[in-house]
C-alpha cells in the first residue's frame, strides 16, 4: 500500500515554529504505524523523534495523535486506516519537546501526588493480606493503565482548563480508593473532590473512546464522584 505521511515536526534548537513534513512509504497491511515511523526514520529521515519501546501496547511510550485521534502507534495497523493519508501529531495539551515527543512530567507529577502506593493502617501479617476475589476484581480494569496519556490528550476539558488533573490521574486515584487494603479512602477522595478534580469532568467520554487498554475511564470518574457524594452530608 502506498501511504502518504504528514508528520508534525519541531526542533526548538533550529525551528522558529512547528511545521509538517511529508513522507511517502510503501507498507504492508499488517504493519503497525510504529513500523512505518521506524522505516521513515531508518530509511528517509534520521532526525525524526518519537518515543517507543515495547511496540505492543504495554509500555505506553508511543501515544500520539493519529489522524486526529489519540492512540498508540504500535496498536494501529495500516489496514485499519480509513485512507492512504496518515497525519501524525504529538499528544495535545502537553508541551512539545521535539517532534512527537512531549513533556510527560506534569502527568507523572499528578500521579506522584496521589500518592501512588497503598497505605494500610495495620502492620503487615506474616502472610498475604486477605482480599476477596470480589474486592480484587474492582481493580481489574484500572490496573490495565499504562500511563500512555491518550485519555488525557483526548479530553476536551484539558483544553479549557489546564489545571484539571485529567483522566489518567483519576484512574490512578480510583485504583487506590477502591483497593480494600488501603485505609486512606476518605483522604484520597477529598484530594480529588475539587473543581479541578473529578468535578471538572463533564462526561464527554472521549477518554473512554481513546483508551487503548479499554478502561472505562469516564465510568471510573463517575464512580469516584458518587463515592464523594455518599460520604458528604
Amino acid at each position, binding site marked *: 500500500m502506498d501511504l502518504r505521511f504528514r508528520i508534525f515536526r519541531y526542533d526548538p534548537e533550529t525551528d522558529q515554529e512547528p511545521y509538517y513534513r511529508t513522507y511517502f512509504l510503501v507498507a504492508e497491511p499488517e504493519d503497525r504505524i510504529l513500523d512505518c515511523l521506524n522505516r521513515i526514520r531508518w530509511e528517509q529521515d534520521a532526525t525524526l523523534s518519537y518515543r517507543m*519501546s515495547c511496540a505492543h501496547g504495554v*509500555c505506553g511510550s508511543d501515544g500520539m495523535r493519529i489522524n486526529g485521534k489519540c492512540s498508540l502507534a504500535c496498536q494501529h495497523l495500516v489496514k485499519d486506516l480509513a485512507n492512504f493519508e496518515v497525519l501524525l501529531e504529538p499528544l495535545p495539551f502537553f508541551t512539545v519537546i521535539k517532534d512527537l515527543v512531549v513533556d510527560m512530567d506534569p502527568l507523572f507529577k499528578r500521579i506522584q501526588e496521589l500518592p501512588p*502506593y497503598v497505605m494500610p493502617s495495620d502492620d503487615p501479617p506474616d*502472610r*498475604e493480606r486477605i482480599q476477596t476475589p470480589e474486592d480484587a476484581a474492582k481493580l481489574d480494569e484500572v490496573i490495565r493503565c*499504562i*500511563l500512555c496519556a491518550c485519555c488525557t490528550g483526548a479530553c476536551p476539558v484539558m483544553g479549557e482548563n489546564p489545571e484539571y488533573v485529567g483522566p489518567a490521574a483519576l484512574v490512578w486515584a480510583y485504583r487506590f480508593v477502591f483497593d480494600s487494603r488501603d485505609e486512606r479512602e476518605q483522604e484520597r477522595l477529598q484530594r480529588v473532590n475539587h473543581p479541578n478534580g473529578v468535578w471538572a469532568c463533564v462526561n464527554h467520554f472521549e477518554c473512554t473512546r481513546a483508551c487503548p487498554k479499554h478502561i472505562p475511564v469516564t465510568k471510573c470518574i463517575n464512580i469516584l464522584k458518587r463515592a464523594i457524594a455518599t460520604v458528604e452530608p
Partner: protein
Amino acid sequence: MKETAKPIRHRHDVVIVGSGLAGLRAAVEVAGTCDLALLSKVYPTRSHSGAAQGGIAAALGNEEPDSWEWHAYDTVKGGDYLTDQDVAEVLAEDAPRAIFELEHMGVPFNRTPEGTIAQRAFGGHTREFGKAPVKRACHAADRTGRVVLDTLFGRIFRSGIRMFPEFQMLDLIRTGNRISGLIAYELATGRVHMFESRVLLLATGGFGKVYKTTSNCFANTGDGVYRAYRNGIPLEDMEFVQFHPTGIHRLGVLISEAARGEGGVLRNRNGERFMEKYAPAIKDLAPRDVVSRAIATEIREGRGIDGNDYVHLDLTHLGEKKLQEKLSEITSFARIYLGVDAVRQPIPVQPTCHYMMGGIPTNGDGQVLDDQGRAVPGFYAVGECACVSVHGANRLGCNSLLDLVVFGRRSGRNILTELPHLDWEPVSDSSADPISERIFHLKSASAGNRMAPLRAALQEIMMNLCSVFRTRKGLQQALTEIRDLEERSRRIVIENSGSHFNYALAEAFELESLLGLSEVIVCSALAREESRGAHFREDFPERDDENWLKHTLALHTTHGPKLSYKPVTLTRFEPRPRTY
C-alpha cells in the same frame, strides 16, 4: 572545530542503572539511607519488566500442596543442571517471603475464593520432583510484570530518590579494580553527564534485540552487559539464549505460557497435540527450550500450519469467561495484531527470542565477579543483565520476576553493608573524552554505512544461524559475518547532528553493544560441543556432563573473546537425564 564540552558532573553514593523490577527493588532497599540516583534510558514505567505477563513463582501452596524444595529442584532441572544449586535454593526458599512483601506493597494479585493469592500452573513447575504440574505461579491476570512494576515505581516515591529518566549509559569509568562511575547521554538535551559513585548497580536487562524475532522491546540492547565486558568483566554462559515457544507469528510478541498453564494446547497442521510426543508426562507444560525445539521440529518436518513456519496455540476450549478474566491481554494481542478471535480461533505462534540466561557473573548478593572470581568492590549487577546463575541453561517461566525481586533486595542489603567501607575514587573530566569524541564524530560524519541495514543484517544472521538449532558450520559462518559487520560499523553515518532526542545517535551506541554481544554468544556457542538446555548443537545432540558440566566465561581481548570455564555448584541434586 572539536566539540569537547565538559561533561556535567554528578556525585551520588549509589547509582543504579535501569528501572525495571531489579533496579527498582534494589532502589527500594537502599532509598532513604544514602544518596541514591536512578538512571534509565526510558521513563521508569516504560521498562521491559512491564511486558512480563504470566506470573511470579513461589511455593505458597495456596491452591495445592507445594514446597520450596520442589521449586528448587524444578529450577535446577529446568536449567539442565547448569544452575548453581546454592543460589537456586536461595531463590526458591526466599520466594514466598518475596511474594508476601510484594502483596504488602500493594501488588493487585488475583485471589482464591478464600482471599489468598491465586496460583496457576506454568511450564516446568511440578510437584514431588517432577511427577505432575503444580500451581505455583502467582499472577495478576496476564499483566503481572506491569502491576509489579507500577507498584515498585509508586513505592520509590515514598523515600524520595533522584531520578534521571531518558539517560542512556554509554560507558563505565574504571579506576584500577574499581568501577568508579559512568558516562551517560541525556536524550532530551544531548548533553554528556558523568556520574561518580561509590557503588554502581547495573540492572540494564537483556539483549533480545540481537535477534530478528524477539519478544523484547527496542530498549533491550544489552548496554550494561556490553560495557561491563569492555571494562574487563568476563561474561558468563552467553550461549544460553531462551526462545519462548509462543511468539505471535511474524511479530514475535509474547503470548504468555499462562495460556498453556490455564489449559491451552499446541497443535500442528494435522490438529495433533504434538507435545504428547516430546514430553509425555507434562506435555504442553514442558520447559520452554523443550517446547521451542518441538515446534521448530514440527515446522522443519512439514507439520507447520499449511506447511508454513508456525503452529497453532489452541485456547478455544477454555471459554470466553476464562479468557476474559485470566488472559485478556494476550487475547487482545491476537485480535489487534492477527485479527484472530482467540475464543473461536487458534493463534498462529512460533518461537521468539525471549530471555538471556547469560550475562555479568555475580554471587548471590549481586556482587560482580572478575575474571578471578573475586567480587569487584562496589560493583553490582541484578536481573537479566546478570548471571547468578539461577537459570542455568534454561530459565523456567515465572522465575524471572522472582529473580529480580529476590536478588534485587539482596543486592540492596549488601550495598548497605558494603557502602561504609568504600571510598570515592578520583575521576577526572577527561574520562568522558573518548565518548565525547565519538559523539562528535558520529554527528559530523557525512558519508559511510547506514546503521539500520547493518543492524537488520546482524539480527538476520543471529536468527538463521544461532537460534533454536545450531551447528559448527553455521556458527562459524555467523562469526565471519558478524566480524564483517563489525568492520563496516566502524564507518557508520547517522545523518542526524541534532541535540534533542537524537535517537539515531543512541542507536549507534546500541549497535556497538549488539555486535559485540553477538560475537560473544556465537563464540561461546561454537566452543560448547554438547547440547544443554537452550543451547542445542545438531552436531552434538547429547548433554555431556563429563566435559561440559561447567560455566563458560568470555573475557574481552583485542582478538575477540577469550574463553575459560568454571565449575557448577552442586548441592543436593545429582545431574540426571532430563525428561519430562
